[in-house]
């Protein structure tokens, strides 16, 4: 990525696009959550992203700082499990990134830290039918990209791993979170949180693509 200014622009554009996408899929996410949970996942994500967008509009600083601020705002406004976890993902990723250049290795490392925090907080493992099943494959795939590849290209290359991970949750039985109580009833529907992660990563892909970064 060429410069800190471009990076902050991308963070802002990403969150705006993410809000747009999630907004458009709010009902779908709610219905996925209703299948075995409480149906509020779409509304929760929209609330969180609205607050994140509003925060980065007003905030200054590096991309890392914006992300950290967005994560705090997201967590507070969203509430619920996904508020805490997606919020922590953003905050930890942002804090780890801090003022580092937004190249592929730094971003991959920061996201790895974010993922670790999500696992520490939520105590879920891959295969538990949570957002981790989309996030972990993506983070692994991103880390496996050539270090000198542009972030945009690396991101695009890693995205299918997230999609496949989310899709695979449809065949899993929930072991964590609200829907874990009655595992079998969650079979057949992909996990709402994992689905959201794909939308978020897709929005970043679009933001990076548009920037040509």
């Amino acid at each position, binding site marked *: 990525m060429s410069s800190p200014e471009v990076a902050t622009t991308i963070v802002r554009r990403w969150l705006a696009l993410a809000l747009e996408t999630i907004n458009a899929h709010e009902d779908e996410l*709610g219905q996925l959550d*209703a*299948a*075995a*949970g*409480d*149906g*509020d996942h779409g*509304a*929760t994500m929209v*609330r969180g992203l*609205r607050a994140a967008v509003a925060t980065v509009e007003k905030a200054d600083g590096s991309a890392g700082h914006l992300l950290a601020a967005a994560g*705090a705002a997201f*967590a*507070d*406004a*969203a*509430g*619920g*499990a*996904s*508020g*805490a*976890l997606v*919020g922590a993902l953003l905050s930890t990723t942002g804090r780890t990134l801090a003022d580092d250049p937004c190249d592929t290795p730094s971003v991959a490392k920061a996201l790895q830290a974010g993922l670790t925090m999500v696992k520490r*907080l*939520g105590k879920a493992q891959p295969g538990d039918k949570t957002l981790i099943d989309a996030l972990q494959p993506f983070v692994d795939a991103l880390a496996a990209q050539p270090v000198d590849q542009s972030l945009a290209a690396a991101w695009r290359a890693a995205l299918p791993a997230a999609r496949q991970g989310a899709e695979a949750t449809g065949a899993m039985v929930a072991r*964590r*979170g*609200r*829907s*874990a*109580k*009655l595992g079998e*009833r969650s079979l057949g529907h992909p996990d709402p949180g994992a689905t959201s992660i794909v939308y978020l990563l897709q929005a970043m892909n679009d933001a990076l693509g548009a920037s040509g970064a």
Partner: protein
Amino acid sequence: MTRLFNDPADFREELIEGFVAAYGRLVKRVPNASGVMAIDSPQPGKVSVVVGGGSGHYPAFCGYVGPGLAAAAVMGNVFAAPSAEQVHRVTKAVASDAGVLYCYGNYSGDVLNFDMAELRCQDEGIDVRTVRVTDDVASAPRGQEEDRRGIAGDFFVFKIAGAAAARGDALDEVERLARKANDHTRSFGVAFGGCTLPGQSAPLFTVEPGRMELGLGVHGEPGIQSSHMRPAREVADLLLDTLLTDAPSDAGSTVAVLLNGLGSTQYEEMFVLYKDINRRLLAEGLTPYKPIVNEMVTSLDMAGCSLTLCWLDDELTALLDAPCASAAYTNI
């Protein structure tokens, strides 16, 4: 279905404002936070019991804030746990020198957010403990009691914790008693119809006419079994068969009883059902202690009810009997 709102995005804020406007004689708003605190909180030397969770369960959680009960409630959006930030702010507002006990239903989102706030408070030198309510026998098998979710049993655990705090018990003791209350409490519910989130026009789930879902969660999480609708006396037996099989190992013969309506089940129906519950309790040699038939932990406008038993001993009975005042429950 939710009909009365302005902007659904403002629902939580407006409901908190309305609640405080109505019950200002018992509670006040926690400044800059999504929560309410008792007018007499914090009290030096007395533990503050902080409850909370998503909205949509009134009287849980704000309806139980007041003298002799909870010191504060942190209020999330409908069916969403409050954020750690809000839990932290509310805790700061009511923390006394005697410490704070968090009491809430065991849901992933609540655990995450309350735990994060607890860590933060501990770092700031506030002694915070946590007792999660895990009364719903439908949500995990015996032996995995700590994985169960919390439903109407909230009421007994809050009441007992609040009474111990009001009496001036130290934090260790308030925690022990709350945990004991939870360990002695079991609930099981049936649902007949879904609930609708504000701003939505379709219910979160539906139950086929003429059928009922057993063990359905208070947020519409699927039940463990679906059955055809049965006469009240069979529903009573079904609830009690399940609860009695799961009685705590040290169960005595006196039980506090709560027959809880989820929102749109008629009070009259619940009394008809209670008649058969009472008969069965007596037949089992159990003595129902001051039963409550009411809406104590709802699920928006869900149709259904749950039965909660809390096996009492002298210690718990004294706390249940202690006076308290709150918007939803006053005891003299």
